[in-house]
C-alpha cells in the first residue's frame, strides 16, 4: 500500500483566513476557517486594506490550529499548497507569503492553486469525480460555466459579461436595506414571497452561454425607486422572490443549455452562491425531469464558502500533474481559466 499523501493548504483570497490539512485529496484532517465578516459588515462590504490587516493578525494562529488538529508534523507533509489568485492582491499575498515561508523552512514542495479550481474540487469531498464534468461556479466575484475535460483541465464555456451573481445580490440587498452580505437574507425572504414582478431574464434563450445580471439589477432598482417616489409600499418578500427567481432562471437555463451542448455525467455547483437554497432546488428539479442521468454535486455548506480544504483537494490533482511553484510565486489577482 502506498503512503498517504498529506497536503498543508492555505486560502486567503478575500476575507477568510483558512489553513487545512488534507489526506489523499479527499479526507479532511483539519480545516480551520477564520472569517472577518463582522469587521467588513461595518463598511457594507469587504475593504481590501482591512482584510489584509486581519490576515496578518490571524495567519500563524490558524496554521498552528490546523497542524494541531490534524496531529501531524512537518516531516509528514508532502506539499504546501496555496491560492495565488484570483482575489484581492493584498489578501492573497498573506497566504502566498506564509505558504512559501513554510515550504522553504522545511524544504517541502509548493503547489500554486487557482481559487476557482479549489471551489470546483470541493466536490471531491462529496463523491468521486468523473470526467468530462461541468461546473457552475457562482460566487461574490464570479459566475462561470467551466468544463473539465480531465483532472485539472479547465476551460470556461460561459461567464458573466457584467456583474457576478453574488455581486447582484449584494447591490440589490443594499436597496432593500439588508446589511452585507445579503445573499442569505434574500434567499430567506424569497422563500416567503412570490415572483410577482417578473423581472427580465437576460439572454435566457440564446445559444450563447454567457450571463448578464446588470439589466435585472437596474430593473429591480428602478422598480423600488419608482415605488418610493409615489409612496407605494412594495412587499420585500415578493421583491426578493422575484429577484431570486430571475437570477435562478438565468443560471438554470444557461446550465441546461451547457449540458445539452457538452454531455457530461456530473454537474458540480460550486462557490458561495451554491449555498443558495433556491438555486439548488431549481437545478435539481430541472435535472430530474430533463436529464436524470446527470448527477448534481453540491458541496456541504462549509465547503461552498472560501476554505483551505478545497485548495488542498485541488492541489492533490495539481501534484499528480507535477505542477509546482518556486520561491518567486506571486499573487495573481486576475488569474482565470482560459476561455474555450
Amino acid at each position, binding site marked *: 500500500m502506498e503512503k498517504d499523501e498529506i497536503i498543508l493548504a492555505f486560502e486567503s483570497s478575500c476575507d477568510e483566513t483558512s489553513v487545512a490539512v488534507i489526506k489523499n485529496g479527499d479526507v479532511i484532517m483539519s480545516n480551520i*476557517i477564520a*472569517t472577518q465578516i463582522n469587521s467588513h459588515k461595518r463598511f457594507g462590504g469587504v475593504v481590501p486594506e482591512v482584510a489584509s490587516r486581519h490576515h496578518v493578525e490571524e495567519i500563524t494562529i490558524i496554521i*498552528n490550529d490546523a497542524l494541531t488538529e490534524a496531529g501531524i508534523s512537518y516531516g509528514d507533509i508532502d506539499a504546501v499548497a496555496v491560492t495565488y489568485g484570483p482575489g484581492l492582491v493584498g489578501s492573497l499575498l498573506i497566504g502566498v*507569503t506564509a505558504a512559501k515561508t513554510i515550504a522553504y523552512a*522545511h524544504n517541502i514542495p509548493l503547489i500554486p492553486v487557482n481559487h476557482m479550481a479549489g471551489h470546483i474540487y470541493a466536490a471531491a469531498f462529496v463523491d468521486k469525480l468523473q470526467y468530462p464534468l461541468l461546473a457552475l461556479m457562482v460566487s461574490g466575484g464570479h459566475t462561470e460555466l467551466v468544463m473539465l475535460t480531465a483532472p485539472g483541465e479547465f476551460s470556461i464555456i460561459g461567464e458573466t459579461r457584467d456583474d457576478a451573481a453574488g455581486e447582484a445580490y449584494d447591490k440589490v440587498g443594499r436597496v432593500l436595506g439588508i446589511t452585507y452580505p445579503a445573499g442569505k437574507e434574500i434567499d430567506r425572504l424569497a422563500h416567503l414571497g412570490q415572483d410577482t414582478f417578473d423581472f427580465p431574464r437576460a439572454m435566457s434563450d440564446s445559444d450563447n452561454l454567457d450571463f448578464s445580471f446588470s439589466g435585472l439589477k437596474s430593473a429591480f432598482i428602478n422598480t423600488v425607486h419608482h415605488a418610493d417616489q409615489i409612496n407605494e409600499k412594495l412587499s420585500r418578500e415578493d421583491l426578493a422572490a422575484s429577484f431570486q427567481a430571475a437570477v435562478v432562471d438565468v443560471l438554470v437555463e444557461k446550465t441546461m443549455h451547457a449540458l445539452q451542448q457538452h454531455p457530461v455525467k456530473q454537474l458540480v455547483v460550486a462557490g458561495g452562491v451554491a449555498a443558495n437554497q433556491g438555486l439548488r432546488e431549481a437545478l435539481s428539479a430541472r435535472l430530474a425531469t430533463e436529464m436524470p442521468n446527470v448527477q448534481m454535486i453540491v458541496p456541504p455548506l462549509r465547503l461552498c464558502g472560501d476554505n483551505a480544504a478545497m485548495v488542498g483537494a485541488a492541489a492533490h490533482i495539481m501534484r499528480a500533474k507535477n505542477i509546482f511553484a518556486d520561491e518567486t510565486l506571486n499573487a495573481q489577482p486576475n488569474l482565470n481559466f482560459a476561455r474555450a
Partner: protein
Amino acid sequence: MITLALDTSNKAMSVAVVQDGELLADTTLNKMRTHSEQLLPTIDRLVALSGLQPSDIDRVAVAQGPGSYTGLRIGVTTAKTLAYTLNIELVGVSSLATLAANVRSDAAIIVPLMDARRGNVFAGMYQWVDGALRNVALDKHVALDQLLEEVQALGQPAIFVGATEKMRLAISATLGGSARFTDALNSLPRAARIAELASGMQPVDIDSFVPNYLRLTEAEVNWLHAHPGVKQTNYVEKV
C-alpha cells in the same frame, strides 16, 4: 546567535544574515518593486551562501513599520511565519530607527523620514547616547510642517535621513543651516542595522505580531467618526 534580518517597508528591500554581531551576508535591492517575488529567494540564497540551513537561524529581526502597507506585510508575514514554524525568536525593529542607525553621529538629533504623500510624512527623532540609539520622539504620521516646527523647538542641529529629496527645500526653508542631510547611500535601509538594533531587544509574541502601520485605514477612520464611543471588539472569529 544567527540572526536573519529583513526590511521590505519601502521601495528598497534589504536582507542580512548576521552571526553574533558579524555580518555574514547581505543584499539590498533598490529598484525591485515586487518584494513578494524577491524576498524568499534572497533569504534562501543568503542563508545558503553563509553555509547555513533554515534550521540554523536563531532569531528573525524585521522592520515592523512604518512604511508601505503591502511591503510591511510581506516582511512581517515572512518573519512571523518563519519564527513560528522554526520555533525561534522574533524581534520587530522600527523602520525609522533602521534608517536613523545609518547616521553615526551623536552631535545632532537624527530625523528619519518617509514620504506619506499629501504633505505628510512618517517620521521619528533619534539620538545616540552612550553608544545606543535612543528614541527621542515617537514614530508618527505627521504633516511635514508640524514635524519641522517640533524639530525647530528642540533648538539642536538635525540630520535628516531617508527619502528626503522632495522635501529638502521645505526643510531648509524652515530650519536653515541647522538641518543637514545624509547622502543617498546612507538613506537606504540596511538589514544588517536591523540585526544590530535587535541585538539589544527582547523577543516578542509571534501570533500577535503585526506591522506598525501608524495609521488606521480610511474606512475605519470614517466608521469611528460615525460611531463615537463604540468599543472595538474582536472582528475575526473561527467558524
